[in-house]
Structures are given as C-alpha cells and as structure tokens.
C-alpha cells in the first residue's frame, strides 16, 4: 500500500464501502431491475382494459423509480468506485487493470440503460395518444437492459471472487486467460437465478407500498391494484424461495473448492445456517402480506410492507458474505492480499521490514525512541484497510475478546499475530519483520485501555518517510 492512507477510525473503511453498496443494491434490485417490467406490465394492462386511472398510477410509480434510480441509485453506483478506490487503491487499481474490458462493456450497457429510463419516463405522456404500444415496447427493452446490467455485474463480482486461471505476470498483460471460467463460476447461475425473481418480487412489494400514497382509501383502484400486485408478488415468491435455496446449497461446495479451511471456522458455521432462517422469515412475511393484500387489502397497514425490505437487506447481506469468505485473504488470488500488499513482496518485507518500502508514513525504521509511532505506522500499513484502532471492528476489541483479563503481554499478542492466518484463514499473514511486530504489539498494548482514534491522511496529511 504505497499511497497516502485514507482511514476512518470510527466507522471503519469497510463499513463505508458496505453502506454505499447496500444502498445501491436496495435501490437497484426492487426499483430498477424488478420495477421496470412491472411498470410496463401495468401500463399494458391499463391499455388493454382501457383504464386511464391505472395508467396514471403506473406513471406515478415510474416517476418515483425514475427519481430514485437516477439520483440515489446512479450515484451510489459511482460511489462504489469512489469508496473502494479511496480505501484500497492497490486493490481497485489492480482489479481495474485485470478486468478493464469487462467493466468497459458494463459501462456501455449502463449508458444505454440510463438513456432508456429517461426516454421511458419522459415520453410517457407524449407517447400516450398515438404511440402507446411503442412506449410499452420501450419499457420491455429497458427491462432487458436493466437485467443485463445486473447479469454482467454479477459475473464481475463472481470473477473477483475467483480469478480463474488468471496468472499475473509482471508488466505483461494476460488478463483474459481465465475470464470466461471465472465469470461463469459455479455460483454465477444460482446467484443470477436468485436475484432475478427476488428483484421482481420486491418490486411488487415496493409498488404496493407506493399504492397507498397515490390512491385514496375508498378508491376501487387501490383495492384492485393491491390485488394485482399481491398476485404478482406471490407468483415470484416460489421462484425466489427455490433459487434462494439452490444458491444456499451451492455455497458449501463452492467454498470447499476455493477455501477449504474457511468451512471450518467458527464464523462460517455460525452465519451459514442463519441464511436459511432469514430466507424462511422472508418467505413467511411475503406470503402473509400477499394473501392479506388479495383477501383484504384494507387491513394491510403500509408500515408492514417495510418489513420484507429490511429482511431482504439482511438476506442479501448474508449472501454477500460468501464473497468475503471466498476471496479473503486475497483481493486477487495468490497475487494481492486484502491489506493491499503483494504476496510476492512478503519475503522482502519479512527480511527488512515493510517501513522502508512505504513512502507515506513518518518512520522508515523501528528504533528505541520511535516504537509507538512506528507501531502506528505499521498498523496503518498492514491492518487499517479492514480494522480500526478503537472504532468498528477494532483490533482493540478483537484482542479483548481473546485476552479478556489483565494487561496484555507482548508474547500473547505477537504469538497470535504471527500465526493468525492459520486459524483465521481469511486474514493475510503479518508482513513485517520481528522488530516491526514488536512495535505493532507495543502500540496495541499501549492503547489497551485508551479510547483513541487514529487519523487518516485525509485529515492528518502525512510526513515524508526519510
């Protein structure tokens, strides 16, 4: 990691990325991928039944998704680039070099999608009279492109988990060798098959939620629309449940083929079964809501409609952990660790330390007098991409869990740090030499009972390493 070190010691760097990504997925799945086909369907029904009120309602739904996707949705998408690059430039810089053309194609599809959503929404009224069927066709076309964006991104996320046969040569580009196999990895299909009905189903719930704002209580339109939407939601539910189960079943074999040790860790055994529980909770809620919507839409309080969304977030989040588990400790398998350090450079760092090769920290050697400062620099270089000193996922709390009693001893900490990658297979090994390990433990012990925060380069700047 030879860049000025951006660091958020309170919420942690990973949380910054996670928040952006979560918002993006919440907007993208129900409100773009799922909502556009549903809006087009409603528009089509309105036309066939000659129901201008329903058409107006579908227009209002589209208005809401247009506003949200073109602001929050689009910006959080760009935000993922912003935050990941800020937090781990080595990772993003390298991944961008490897997968540039995949991303470039994705970008083209994305441009088309954005243009189409504008055309679809902004011409709704002007095309209403003469060109209604053409307008509905635009909706169908847009649906396809929204889905295609998701299908490509799912593949990109897939091959970031497993770079296939890709072999990194220094200054020699050979990125495409394993692209295909990596793209269509064993989790690709279950994931895509799951995400599709999931998006369609949650779109139904989202529109139901909106119906309550755009129609009046005694209105027949409300009653009818909620019934349509409940039926729609129920149609996609079994597919979502089945695909979700398939996805869940595919995880262990995929894990086993990639990181056998991950399977046996405590973390894995605790989160893996919970996915199924969350999936079941979601299914039950959706069944209850849809049935109520069909039988007695009047009794359906709109706040309840938010519950499946919260459960969905939890579900998607837990599935996402698969990616975390499989990929770690690497960003690119056997090439780059999650801490932004090259696997190949480890022997060099082990010999002479990592400090002499870091240009944006204040110390270049551990000495008697600079132990704590050097320790902090080493923390920033080797731990800070995932951990904080005193905030979320802090090393302090991690060690408090391991050694709850008494003042920590250097031997306890250094023995753990030296070997942690063996029992925590998602952790990269500690890269520095013994003196640096000493400084790092000194820094951590010094702050055992202090509630301190470390500033990143964005506020503290940096002093040049001499």
């Amino acid at each position, binding site marked *: 990691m030879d860049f000025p070190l951006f660091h958020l010691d309170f919420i942690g760097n990973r949380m910054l990325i996670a928040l952006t990504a979560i918002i993006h997925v919440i907007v993208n799945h129900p409100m773009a991928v799922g909502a556009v086909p549903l809006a087009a369907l409603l528009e089509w029904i309105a036309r066939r039944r000659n129901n201008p009120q329903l058409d107006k309602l579908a227009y209002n739904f589209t208005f809401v998704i247009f506003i949200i996707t073109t602001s929050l949705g689009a910006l959080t998408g760009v935000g993922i680039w912003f935050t990941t690059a800020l937090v781990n430039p080595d990772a993003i810089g390298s991944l961008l070099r490897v997968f540039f053309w995949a991303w470039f194609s994705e970008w083209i599809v994305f441009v088309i999608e*954005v243009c189409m959503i504008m055309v679809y929404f902004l011409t709704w009224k002007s095309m209403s009279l003469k060109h209604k069927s053409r307008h509905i066709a635009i909706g169908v076309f847009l649906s396809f492109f929204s889905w295609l964006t998701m299908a490509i991104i799912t593949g990109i996320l897939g091959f970031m988990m497993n770079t296939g046969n890709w072999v990194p040569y220094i200054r020699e580009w050979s990125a495409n060798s394993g692209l295909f196999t990596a793209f269509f990895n064993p989790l690709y299909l279950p994931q895509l098959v799951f995400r599709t009905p999931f998006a369609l189903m949650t779109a139904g719930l989202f529109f139901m939620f909106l119906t309550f704002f755009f129609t009046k209580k005694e209105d027949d339109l409300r009653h009818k629309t909620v019934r349509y939407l409940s039926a729609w939601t129920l149609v996609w539910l079994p597919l979502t449940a089945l695909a979700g189960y398939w996805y869940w079943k595919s995880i262990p074999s995929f894990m086993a083929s990639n990181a056998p040790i991950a399977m046996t860790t405590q973390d894995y055994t605790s989160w893996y079964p919970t996915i199924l529980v969350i999936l079941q909770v979601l299914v039950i809620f959706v069944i209850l809501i849809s049935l109520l919507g069909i039988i007695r839409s009047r009794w359906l309080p709109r706040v309840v409609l938010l519950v499946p969304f919260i459960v969905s977030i939890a579900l998607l989040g837990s599935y996402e952990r698969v990616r975390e588990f499989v990929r770690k400790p690497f960003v690119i398998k056997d090439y780059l660790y999650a801490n932004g350090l090259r696997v190949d450079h480890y*022997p*060099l760092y082990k010999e002479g330390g990592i400090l002499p090769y870091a240009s944006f920290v204040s110390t270049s050697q551990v000495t008697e007098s600079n132990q704590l400062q050097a320790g902090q620099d080493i923390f920033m270089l080797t731990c800070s991409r995932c951990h904080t000193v005193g905030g979320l996922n802090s090393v302090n709390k991690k060690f408090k869990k391991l050694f709850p009693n008494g003042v920590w*001893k250097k031997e306890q900490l250094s*023995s753990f740090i030296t070997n942690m990658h*063996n*029992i925590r297979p998602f952790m990269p090994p500690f890269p520095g030499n013994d003196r640096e390990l000493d400084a790092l433990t000194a820094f951590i012990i010094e702050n055992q009972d202090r509630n301190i925060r470390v500033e990143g*380069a964005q506020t503290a700047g940096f002093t040049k390493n001499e």
Partner: protein
Amino acid sequence: MNQVPVPHDLELQLPLPEGLLKILLVLLFLIHILFVNFMVGGVTLSFIFEIIGLKNKKYDALAREISGTVTVNKSLAIVLGVAPLLAINLAYTTYFYSATSLTGIAWMMVIPAVTIAFLLTYIHKYTWDKLENNKFLHLTFAFMGLILFWTIPLIFLSNVNLMLFPSRWTEVHGFIPAVLLQNVIPRYLHFMLATIAVSSLFAVGWFGRKKFDVNKHLPGFSREEIKYNFYLIAFIATLMQFIAGPLLLFTLPVYGISITVYGFILLGVLAAVLFMFLVWYEIRDNKKTIGRFFWTVILLLTGTVISMAFGRHYYRERAIEPHRQLVETKTQELYWKSEAARTRLRMGISKEPAKSAGQAGFEKNCAVCHAKETVLVGPSLNEIFELYEDYPEGIVEWSKAPEVKRGGPVMPSFAHLGDEELLEIGKYMLKAAAE
C-alpha cells in the same frame, strides 16, 4: 526534490496501450464535461431567469424550459463520467489516488452532495406549479441546488490539480489547503465561465431548432430574441475568458509548461478569436437570419475546446514526467529487491532442519493460542503436559470436541484434521513440554 514522496507504482501492465488510453481519457472526459457544463450552466441560467421572471412572466417560462433540459443532461453527465473516471484511475494511478486520499473527506462527499443536488433539482422542477404563489421557497430549492452544483466542480478541480504536484503533497491536509494551491481558483473561474458560455450555446441550439414551438412553450419570445439573448451571454462569458484564461496560464506552476502546451493553447485561442468574431457578427446581424452560422460557431468552439484539452493534457504529462521517472525507477528497484528476497528465501529453506509433521501441524493450527510456558488464549503446553502426560490420545479426543473450561473464547473443534494428524500434534506437544 527533497521533500517529495516517491512511491512505487502498481506492477501490473495497463490493459490497453498507454497512448490509446490517454487519448480515450481526453476525449471521453470532454464529452463528460460537455454535459457537466449543460447541467451546471443550465441550473445557473434557470435560476437567474426565474428571478428575472418574478417581474417579467415570460422569463419564468424560459427558466422552466431550461430546467427541463437539466433532467436529461445531468444524468448523462453522471453516466458519461464513469469511463473517464476509470481511465484516469488507470493512466495516473499513483497521482490520482494520492490526491483523492489527501482530500478524502471532500472527495467522498461528492456522492451525497450530487445526490442531494439532483433531488433538489427534481423538487424544484416538479413543484413549479404547486409553488407558483410561493416563489421564495421555490427559488430557495433552486439556490440550495445551485450552491452544491457550484461547489462540486471545485472538489474535482482541486484533485486533478493536486495530483500534478507531488512536491506539494506533504503540505496538504484535506480539501481547503488543496483549493488554496496557487492556480485552483483561476482554474475554477475559467471552468465556470466556460460552463456559462457552453450552456448558453446549447440553449441557442436547443430553443432555436425548427421543431421547437417557441410560441407554445415560450410565449412572448420570438425565436430570434432567444437566440440573440443566449448568443449575447455566450459572447460576454467568452470575452471574460480573455482575462481568466491568461490568469490561469500565468499562475500555472512552471513545471508543466512546454512549447507543445503553448502551441495547443495558442491554437485554441485562435479558434476562440474566430468564434468571437462570428458570434459578434451574428449578434450584430440581429435579424431573421440570426443563427445561420450556428454550426460553424459550434465547430470553432469545439476546435478551441479540443486544443485546450490537449494543451492541458501535455501540461499534465510534462508536470509529472520527472516524478514519474523516479517512480518508475523505484518500482523497478522494488521488483528486483523483492525477486532477490524470494530467491534467498527459496535457498534458505533447504538449510532449515525439517520439521516433524506434528510440529508443522502444531505451528499451523495451535501455536496461535498455545505456547510452551506462557498462557496465551489457551493453557500453556506445560499445563497440558500435566493433564495428558503419556496420554496423547486424550489431546486428540479433547480437540475434536472441546468444551468451555475457563473464561475467554471457546476452542473450536479440530476434528477436520483427522485422528492421525491430531495424534502427531498431541505427541509433539507433550514432547515439546517435556524438553
């Protein structure tokens, strides 16, 4: 270059030839910035016309028409910004990432700021009728959006400026010092004037097109009047560039200046002068025929913009070239040092005494929590020795299904290692404790 940090670069090769990447960057960036101009300029003009519209209703309609174009232009600005963002990430990795890190908070705030700015423009656009009688509130929405739209370019500018000057990186702690570097403000001025000029020309074309029904959408205006007004705004804004431009050029740190840079800029100025003449000619000729040279005007401006963009590009190249060579050397150095260390490691390994399977297994799976004498997470080997002396099978049984014995974390099961390996490990543990 004493205080200059010289980092090593990423070692992976670029995914496409560097020259091609840079041409792509310059061109894709221009298209992006064109729509940014339409967006920021559109918001600005709309705001001004809405204020004028308080007295003269017909300008309110004009403001509304302009704000309608922003809806599309702003989304295109975003989506077309992704490609140049990725291209600059690739072409100037060390420089771009260093600059964004050092101004990290402001950089990160771009995302919520643009989101909020967009939402404000939507509120502003879709409450035009509803707030007809509360213009103050309506204008307040526009104004808040305007402030954001005027601030965000400053964040981008300060970054792409900071990345050019590694020698200044040590001084910069955050966004404000980055803005205060000598030439950011002139650059900003230059950009904002261009924004006004470009969006005005867009308005000439957009409202001047044949298909646009002026009488219906902008009652009280004639097509010629609209063209005249926007031409005039573009003319004045560009005239001011003849102050802002030189101001920027002469505050640019000297590192990047070269004949090529001057050449491109002069070419751009030449096209701009011709552009000014032609626009002036159109304005003076305020008749039915106004706008007949519109596409020539656009062509000349395109010439200016492309020349300036390449001038800017060669400035950037020249400014970082010496540093880039140092970085290149450093990267090579690290590569060879690292290669040497790997070789030493490979040779060194053969000299180490071979470890028994038990020792290797212990170090891999157990050493993190158990040491010979000290109590780490779990008990020391000495304690274990007392419990299981001459009974390694007991260690095997325990480690397959550990129980809670004392405070702290529970030991996980190691059943997956298999009895055979566990027994080896157990034997080694007892042996090590006895030594």
